[in-house]
């Protein structure tokens, strides 16, 4: 089986006036079609750099990034991106903002079809009735939902989310988690989610990759047994508690605050048996 996203032994360094700054060093991530991987790691370790490599905005110094069996050499329109800063264009309505990618990506849609597509997505994320509002008239959570629609409007194969919910309050964030599940059901994509919220990572993703401190390499991969929509209660099972404990420990290792026990890149299968037992 080929993976939709394959990052193979990628190394990358930024060249600045102060010298070279190695950011990624031996990064391996693979995501099957329809998969949703969350990437966590210490701040400044190179997570956003990773998204730029996948999007083709940067070329790695060494190693390869493959998308759908093709080596990524330049940006491609099969990618959709959303960031922590939703960057809506203030001179456009929400609907026009969502339609922006359709003005760039070659397509044969008529104006009406583009509008329908954007309206459909806005309704999907609960923004029906806000199409003609200006971005400044919306709350932060609403803007982030609109930015999600913009990332999906051209039906990308890969959705890249770089800490999209990082600036939102806890309640809004949990709302958006639920919405993400609904969206993924109706608009299938292969996802990469950068986050610093461990609960978010296991709630949304089916695989969590922990990066080491800079220069980052793949330090740990956790498979999440649940896939598909789930309720927030899932975060309060002993199974979830166990996964969170593992991830928290791995982050401490990545930050250099705890000694590593497991070998790097060891794939630790989730212990469903033990977790299930713990529940009784």
């Amino acid at each position, binding site marked *: 089986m080929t993976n939709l996203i394959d990052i193979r032994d990628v190394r990358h360094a930024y060249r600045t006036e102060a010298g070279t700054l190695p950011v990624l060093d031996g990064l391996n991530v693979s995501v099957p079609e329809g998969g949703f991987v969350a990437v966590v790691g210490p701040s400044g370790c190179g997570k956003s750099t990773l998204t730029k490599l996948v999007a083709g905005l940067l070329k790695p110094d060494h190693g390869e990034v493959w998308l759908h069996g093709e080596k990524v050499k330049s940006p491609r329109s099969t990618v959709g*991106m959303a*960031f922590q800063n939703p*960057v809506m264009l*203030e001179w456009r309505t929400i609907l026009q903002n969502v339609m*922006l*990618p359709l003005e760039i990506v070659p397509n044969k849609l008529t104006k009406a079809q583009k509008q329908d597509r954007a309206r459909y997505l806005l309704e999907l994320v609960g923004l029906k009735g806000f199409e003609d509002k200006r971005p400044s008239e919306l709350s932060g959570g609403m803007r982030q939902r609109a930015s999600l629609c913009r990332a999906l409007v051209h039906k990308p194969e890969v959705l890249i989310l770089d800490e999209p919910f990082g600036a939102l309050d806890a309640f809004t964030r949990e709302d958006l988690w639920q919405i993400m599940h609904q969206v993924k059901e109706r608009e299938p994509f292969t996802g990469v989610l950068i986050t610093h919220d461990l609960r978010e990572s296991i709630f949304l993703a089916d695989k969590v990759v922990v990066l080491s401190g800079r220069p980052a390499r793949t330090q740990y991969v956790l498979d999440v047994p649940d896939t598909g929509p789930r309720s927030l209660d899932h975060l309060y099972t002993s199974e979830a508690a166990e996964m969170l404990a593992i991830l928290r420990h791995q982050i401490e290792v990545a930050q250099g605050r705890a000694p590593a026990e497991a070998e790097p890149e060891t794939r630790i299968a989730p212990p469903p048996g033990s977790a299930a037992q713990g529940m009784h």
Partner: protein
Amino acid sequence: MAYVPEPVRSPSAAVGAAGAAGRSMAGFLTSRAFLAPVGAVLVFLIVWEALVWVNGWPNYVMASPSDLPPAYARYWELFLVMGWQTLWRTVVGLLVAVVFGVLVGMVMGFSRLMRDALYPLLVGFNAIPKATVVPIVALMFVGAHDFNTVLIAFMISFFPIAVSVSIGLSTLEPEYRDILRSLGASQFTVFWKIALPKTLPEFFGALKVAVTLAFIGTNLMEIVSPHGRGLGALFDSGKTNSDYPLMFAVLIALAFLGIVLYYIVVALEKIFAGWAERSPG
């Protein structure tokens, strides 16, 4: 002070859409946005007149507003011709400044290296008092009067435009660029779809300064260079002939033209960057 709105009807606009336009015009003429500044101008004229009258100043010390209408009546043809010359040369100078300023601003906004390289040069250039440049230009291109005037208007006004565009572009959040670039958009598309519209509020802010500067530049050239044209030259001839009411009439005409130009820019700003006006709250 009661104000009775008079229906404004120029003979050419008396038919067709004039009905609706006339009504909204009447609405505007009774609105506070119109009455307040008109009232302020009236107060200003009254105070001016009173000041001259109380002090008993003769014309050659200070003309009073009541001296002006005769001056306009006598020279109205000159005012139209000279006013037009001043106007078009200012506007052409400003347009060249916009093109050149936007280009320089783009180069400096997109390239860090060019910004570092050009900035001190621009600042130094801007710091030179233009009154010193005027005679140099007048000597360099003797007789090319229109060209000289446009050149000074341009030189004095392009700096704020270049700086505002370069700042607008260089402070563009990288996410904007990434979203478009990740879809395969060209650098030009990024500029056209995002950078340019996003910079428009700064651009118009600078244009408001630039339009006044260009106007000053035009008049500087007109007054300083001999055998000049435009309102500046008319002012100069008033000085030579000790026609003080004429000099004051020119000043008022200049102020009027300056106001017109300024509000044209404001109207353009409303059209193209009206979205940047934040609603309160």
